[in-house]
């Protein structure tokens, strides 16, 4: 039994380092995804058909693709078209641009929830387009979109396990190293599951906090 637990003590630094990398990559990807998603959703509001078509195509393609194939195109296919990125960079950009499609849809549904009359009134009062988004649309839709946003961030965290396949030293990658070095199976994976669960739970709790904040 002592030996069983020893492995955990021995590999705690490796697993925690993996957890930190996972958290760090997911944080960057989330920021990137939300920023790009918001831009896409705002551009979608402009009545210029070709642009809207391009955005729809982007969203549909990203949502129809396995994240693994996106990462492979970027990481292994990239160099043959002159795009050389480190595995970690591919991870952040891949997850970020993948998440952006989902975030854009969440923002879009949020924008649609604002009654037209309010926008017309704001325009009559002389507010500009960006002012309308900042002062009228965003504050109201935050209430509505916070739960699906948190949900999407949690999905991104779980998807980030795939980065292990393109050799990013995140939690899953370090777990397989733990397995390969010790031939143990139960301890590494139980540890990984618990650590992922802790991270996800932390994000969920943070989401609940934000939800209470944005409610009026």
């Amino acid at each position, binding site marked *: 039994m002592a030996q069983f637990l020893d492995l955990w003590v021995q590999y705690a630094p490796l697993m925690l380092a993996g957890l930190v990398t996972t958290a760090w990559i997911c944080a960057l990807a989330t920021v990137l995804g939300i920023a790009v998603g918001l831009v896409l959703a705002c551009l979608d509001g402009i009545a210029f058909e070709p642009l809207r078509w391009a955005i729809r195509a982007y969203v549909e393609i990203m949502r*129809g*693709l*396995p994240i693994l194939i996106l990462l492979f*195109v970027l990481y292994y296919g990239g160099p043959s078209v002159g795009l050389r990125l480190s595995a970690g960079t591919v991870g952040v950009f891949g997850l970020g641009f993948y998440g952006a499609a989902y975030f854009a849809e969440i923002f879009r549904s949020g924008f649609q929830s604002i009654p037209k009359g309010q926008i017309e009134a704001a325009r009559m009062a002389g507010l500009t387009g960006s002012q309308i988004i900042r002062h009228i649309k965003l504050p109201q839709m935050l209430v509505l979109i916070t739960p699906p946003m948190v949900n999407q961030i949690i999905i991104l965290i779980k998807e980030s396990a*795939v980065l292990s*396949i393109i050799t990013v030293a995140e939690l899953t990658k370090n777990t*397989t190293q733990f397995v390969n070095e010790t031939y143990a199976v139960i301890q590494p994976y139980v540890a990984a599951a618990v650590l*992922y669960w802790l991270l996800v739970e932390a994000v969920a709790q943070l989401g609940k906090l934000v939800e209470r904040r944005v409610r009026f």
Partner: protein
Amino acid sequence: MPVTTFTLIQNNLPVMLWGAGMTVLVSGIAIILGMPLGLVLCFGVSSSNRWVSRISRVYQSVWRGTPILVQLLIIYYLLPLIGINVPPILAAIIALTLNTIAFQAEIFRGGLQAIPPGQMEAARMVGIRIWAARRTILVPQIFRLVIPSLVNETISILKNSSLVSVIAVTELMRVSQQIVATTYRPFEIYIAAAVIYIVINLVLSLAGRTAERRLAHGT
């Protein structure tokens, strides 16, 4: 002389389509097996028996809260450890099924909540057994309500099935990797695989929309 993109794709398309067939097969079996089991779990979660609902919730929380890649690796490496040797494809199907059950149960629960409880009470009053009532009264209505979410889940499982390439199941992703290993043309091959995935998903969402329209007529 390097092969042109066209010849490259032309030469490898049959193998890739075979891989795509495997992808559809594995995720199809998982989704279909997941439906009845997901329904059972859904009734478990909403059960009035505290222990049944608690255990169901723990199952759901674990499978929805961990990465599917980790689940797949656990099943693939853990089963032989307890003396059960399964081929990779079976491990893949088991992992995807156990995962989709948790998600489908949540989808069905949403549908279940939309049905007035009076129906079940009435059915129980006239003496229909609980599982018979669930099967004949609740399930058909639930299905009609949740088709859009079910299509989403199917697409999600289809995309996640690319992960089973890690345990050497020769589906689309794995086949693509093998082709890349021999041709050294990752860009074109992976883009081609991406196109195949998108086409399958497009067909799925179109089929879903048709099913939705058909069933809406039935009401």
